[in-house]
């Protein structure tokens, strides 16, 4: 083992040596009287009840600003077929030509 490896192992060695003395109180350090200190609880057990309280006592989240809603309107007084194909089918029966109207947006939207 070269000097570099030994140097990198040095901190681990220190920790291993000191580990028995970390986070533990020996009998000599205990208070002379009174109950034993509580065992530390996992984070989940502490936070879950708090989260539940906040959830139960909070109102609904503020609604995000609504997207623009284009109001619906009657598309004029023309009897529109549901589709171009439907108009063609009707035309085969009636003998009339087909009138197709193209636009941007929808004819039954206020803004079109």
């Amino acid at each position, binding site marked *: 083992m070269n000097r570099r490896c030994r140097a990198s192992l040095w901190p681990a060695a220190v920790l291993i040596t000191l580990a028995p003395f970390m986070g533990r109180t020996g009998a000599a350090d205990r208070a002379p009287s009174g109950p034993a200190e509580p065992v530390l609880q996992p984070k989940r057990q502490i936070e879950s009840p708090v989260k539940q309280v906040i959830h139960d006592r909070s109102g609904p989240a503020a609604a995000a600003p609504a997207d623009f809603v284009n109001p619906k309107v009657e598309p004029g007084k023309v009897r529109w077929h549901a589709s171009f194909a439907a108009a*063609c089918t009707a035309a085969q029966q009636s003998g009339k030509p*087909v*009138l197709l109207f*193209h*636009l*941007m*947006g929808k004819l039954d939207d206020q803004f079109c």
Partner: protein
Amino acid sequence: MLFSNEGIARHINQYFEAAWEMVRPVPVVRIDFGNGNIVTRTLHGNIATYVCTRDGRVLDALPGVYTPGAYLDCLDQFRLLAEYIKGRGPAALADYHQAQATALRKNETPGRLVLDMRAFASKAKIEDPIKFVLNPAAGAKQPGARAANGSQPRFENVQDLASWDALIEDTRRNETVHRGQIHELLGRCGLVTPDKVVKPLYKDILQADLDDPYLGLGKTLFGSYPFKAEDSR
């Protein structure tokens, strides 16, 4: 709106089987002035009206907006065109478009379809009651004059009158320049379904390229925008 007009709606319901289609969502501009006032407008919304055979092939088309009177006159011409072509076939339709395109290119009055009134006066059946009259008589309506055809609405303010004048000008341009382009397009395409002509019609005639996400307005919107570089970061 045109289709709220009683005369137009009645004519369409009587003589056509009608349908409408959305070619793309309409661009909507909303300006929030921050004090509760919001103005909503559509941007660059263009329309087209096609007359088609019973099996869905385009005979003719109107580009853009028209005054109600001019629109009604065009619809009646569409009705007669459908009957005229029914007994004649694609070659007659090609001749029709060529004749109309030529007349409009020369700034002449385009031909009109007329119904031979003897068809109603005589008991004898008249073959081909519908005639396509080239260079119609002086009494025939000029495309520009047709724009102002029909009853003029009552105006409550100067803005409404200005809008009406703008509509007349739009009609005149649609009936001359744009119709000539449509006759040339349909003359080239022949008898096709609307999906074959919708993109060139919108792009080349109505100046609204449906494949352009900004409908040709990109340069206007972003060309001189001072914060373009900052926003793109």
